[in-house]
């Protein structure tokens, strides 16, 4: 276990370095600069800003400067809003995205796992067919179609929830539901498949023969094996929730990190773009490690193969 954590952390360093390098040069080789926006800045201020950010130095020099600051944990000030540090902007916007992601994941797990279990237990009955057809529809329905539809039905027509914004808990429901339903559908299918396979195992038969109650078999014996595919899926799901949040934040006008990132890219706010990319990459590497640890904890087999 310690070895796994250690080797992953060691591997994270070159990965992050490559990401930082690729992103750095990608932004620099792109046409346009951060200071040639429609609002004309006086020439002297522009020169001053450029020298402040080292933009008048050779490119490789800028790169080394950036890496040096990065090693000290300094992401630098935003190009577009020089009075703000990039880390401050991330600290403001990320909690919003985190709330959205966590709520969506909760909806996905609370809806998906019981549905999948029920479908597996009542196989080939309407309790299997109905949720499974619905989940197929859920997988094929993109968030940017579902979102506006939910706004139209639950907000415009029924007036149950505010259509957009992010001020209080009532605003949280619609965006989280929109993002969560896709994952709920996917998790329901994974749970069903995993449970069906597990329920055929010998040890389940043994437990049954020993007279364990069906509830005990389900919660204690079958759930452990049957939920493994769901846990494996959580890694890609985290990455998916992050990219999903870009779209959701744009539909519902939510001031999260996804929206900040897209705006920063449009504004050529180099330091903000770099900072956000590195932040997301670190987050995903960390979450993937977490998933692997949980997996190793539940499934001894994967511990050996690692």
């Amino acid at each position, binding site marked *: 276990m310690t070895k796994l954590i250690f080797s992953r952390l060691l591997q994270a360093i070159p990965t992050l370095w490559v990401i930082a390098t690729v992103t750095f040069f990608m932004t620099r080789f*792109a046409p346009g600069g951060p200071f040639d926006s429609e609002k004309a800045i006086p020439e002297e201020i522009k020169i001053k800003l450029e020298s402040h950010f080292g933009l008048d130095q050779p490119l490789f020099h800028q790169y080394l400067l950036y890496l040096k600051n990065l090693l000290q944990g300094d992401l630098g000030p935003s190009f577009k809003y020089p009075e703000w540090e990039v880390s401050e902007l991330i600290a403001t916007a990320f909690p919003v995205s985190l709330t959205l992601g966590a709520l969506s994941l909760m909806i996905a797990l609370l809806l998906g796992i019981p549905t999948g279990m029920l479908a597996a237990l009542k196989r080939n009955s309407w309790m299997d067919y109905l949720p499974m057809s619905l989940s197929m529809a859920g997988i094929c329905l*993109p968030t*940017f179609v579902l*979102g506006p539809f939910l706004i*139209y039905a639950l907000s*415009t027509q029924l007036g149950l929830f505010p259509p957009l914004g992010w001020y209080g808990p009532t605003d949280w429901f619609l965006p989280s539901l929109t993002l969560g339903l896709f994952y709920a559908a996917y998790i329901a299918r994974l749970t069903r498949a995993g449970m069906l396979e597990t329920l055929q195992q010998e040890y389940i038969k043994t437990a049954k023969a020993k007279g364990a109650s069906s509830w005990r078999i389900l919660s204690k014996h079958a759930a452990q094996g049957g939920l493994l595919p769901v846990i494996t899926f959580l890694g890609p799901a985290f990455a998916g929730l*992050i990219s999903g949040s870009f779209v959701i934040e744009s539909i519902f006008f939510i001031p999260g990190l996804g929206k900040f990132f897209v705006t920063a*890219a*449009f504004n050529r706010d180099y330091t903000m773009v770099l900072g956000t990319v590195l932040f997301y990459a670190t987050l995903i590497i960390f979450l993937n490690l977490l998933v692997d640890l949980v997996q190793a904890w539940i499934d001894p087999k994967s511990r050996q193969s690692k």
Partner: protein
Amino acid sequence: MSTHRSSSLSKDAWSRLVANKMAIASLIMLFFISMLCLFGPLLSSHSFDQQNLDKVFQAPSIDHPLGTDSLGRDLFARTTYGGRISLMVGLLATLVSLIIGVTYGMASGYAGGKIDAWMMRFVDVLYSLPFIIFVILLMVLFGRNFLLLFLAIGAVEWLTMARITRAQTITLKKAEFIEAARALGFSHWRILFHHLLPNLIGPIIIYATLTVPAVMLLEAALSFLGLGVQAPMSSWGSLIQEGAEKMDAAPWLLLFPGSLFCLTLFALNFLGDGLRDALDPKHTKG
């Protein structure tokens, strides 16, 4: 080689596919949608970018079967034209991802050993990255041109294809006909493309069918964020984005492109599942 055997295999697969009602319904649906998108813009008396400011937000009528948008453009022409773009992006980007993924996967699996380990390690690392971020970055920084869109999406989607191809290659590498080819002194190139590749077609087709909807979804999401296809051109994603904005005034702007897009995704997914069952009898549905 034994053409007889392979034809009977594909015949088997075909009969299994025909027996699958959902898959066949999806196939017919896809054919219908493609024809609609291909010939729809020609059938309509309005072009997709012809504005008519006297006729904005018109509900569906005989002249405008799906209504008009905020600039009085005909939604039927725009939806079918947008469908062309979405389907084309879906097919071409899948092709890009296929070429990269299959080549990479075959090379990795065939080489084996340390090279294989490193190549797959690289795929693992890429897998764990938020690639959409790079796609967004690429599209924003380098302008929204079409070629870049294919390349960017194709570059994201090749990873799974590479894994599948590698796994198949490793199994096949030990097969007798490959050993025979090697014993006959054929070049690696010839073995890879004449002997291995034809035997990989099954899994490749299955996964390609499932990649098309994934790619279309990505393109639509980008267009939805304003990063894909630019006005006055349309794709289903950009139409859905417009529709979502004007939903209260004109719900049909969201309804028609949205449902056509969902239907297509639905059909492609079902067809992919059906093909998997047909081409890979060992794979049983859970």
